[in-house]
């Protein structure tokens, strides 16, 4: 089962810089390793991460095989208005996960 941990402040003042943290469970198998029978394990990684704030893209990352398992992202944005922040991870073998949180801006 895929699990994601999201940390976004529930409330913020308008114009305030807020910190966003996301952590997702994923093996990030690079595709260069052999298993204990000597057979190469196929690549299985997250390739894209997108964060949207009220449907506007505010952060995007491309991921590559050298990135460790359970990728963690920390970035910041400016709290402009109340609404929803959504997170979307997509990757190999049709991997797809999404989370969303609400934020109140006063």
């Amino acid at each position, binding site marked *: 089962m895929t699990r994601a941990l999201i940390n976004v402040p529930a409330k913020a003042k308008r114009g305030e810089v807020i910190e966003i*943290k996301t*952590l997702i469970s994923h093996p990030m198998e690079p595709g260069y390793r052999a298993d204990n029978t000597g057979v190469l394990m196929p690549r299985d990684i997250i390739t894209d991460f997108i964060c949207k704030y009220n449907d506007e893209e505010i952060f995007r990352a491309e991921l590559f095989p050298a990135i*460790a398992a*359970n990728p963690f992202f*920390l970035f910041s944005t400016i709290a402009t208005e109340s609404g929803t922040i959504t997170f979307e991870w997509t990757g190999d073998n049709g991997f797809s996960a999404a989370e969303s949180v609400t934020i109140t801006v006063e």
Partner: protein
Amino acid sequence: MVVAALLGTAAIAAEIPLSERKSGYDLMGRETRAMQDDDTANPGMLWVLDGEALWNRKAGAADKSCTDCHGDAQASMKGVAARYPAFDAARKRPIDLEQRINACRTDRQNATPLPFEGKELLALSAYVARQSRGLPIDVAIDERTKPFLDSGRELFTARQGQLNLSCAQCHDDNWGQKLAGAPVPQGHATGYPLYRLEWQTLGSLQRRLRNCIVGMRAEPYAFGAPEYVDLELYLMWRARGMKMETPAVRP
């Protein structure tokens, strides 16, 4: 050179005074400490969440979940991991937390035991041990467990493997010094199961012990071997009074 230095100090093998004990946490870098401290940055919490789901899931022929007997883990499991390994009357020896969970599975749930180092057993033990975070380690040493504690101490201080090293030579006598650029910790088992960045996953104390034994070029025991449990008991006694950190993060 490193080996020579270790051998040179072997004569002063002595247990670390209680007041001078340090968790591996204190030897880590600022970023790794921050990762452990924040539950939304600590990857070990991913296993804790899985463990919570497993705690509430019915299993085995008895069709019972952990909750059906133990109720809310936040109350019933508080402080439990800090008391393990603990004596099990049926098995006439101490068993560790993973073995306790599997004993429950076979005896109460009529389910197959979970494999050691499998995701499910790690998740359940992380979830149970998480309920003891911040509580002092307090294993019961009495006439029943004392022989196993002594056997654990013997394993800790006995030289083994092609390098002819003992656990104590690194973790009692040379902690704080460097081994291949990384500080040698005192080896207190305060945060297991823990997330090692090197493993890129959560692992048990037995996996850690296995790593060290292979590092000494000795032959590791099979998972669940009594020798590991005796060592675990000694390590927990050695860390008595120190606070549980599960799920800890280590480099």
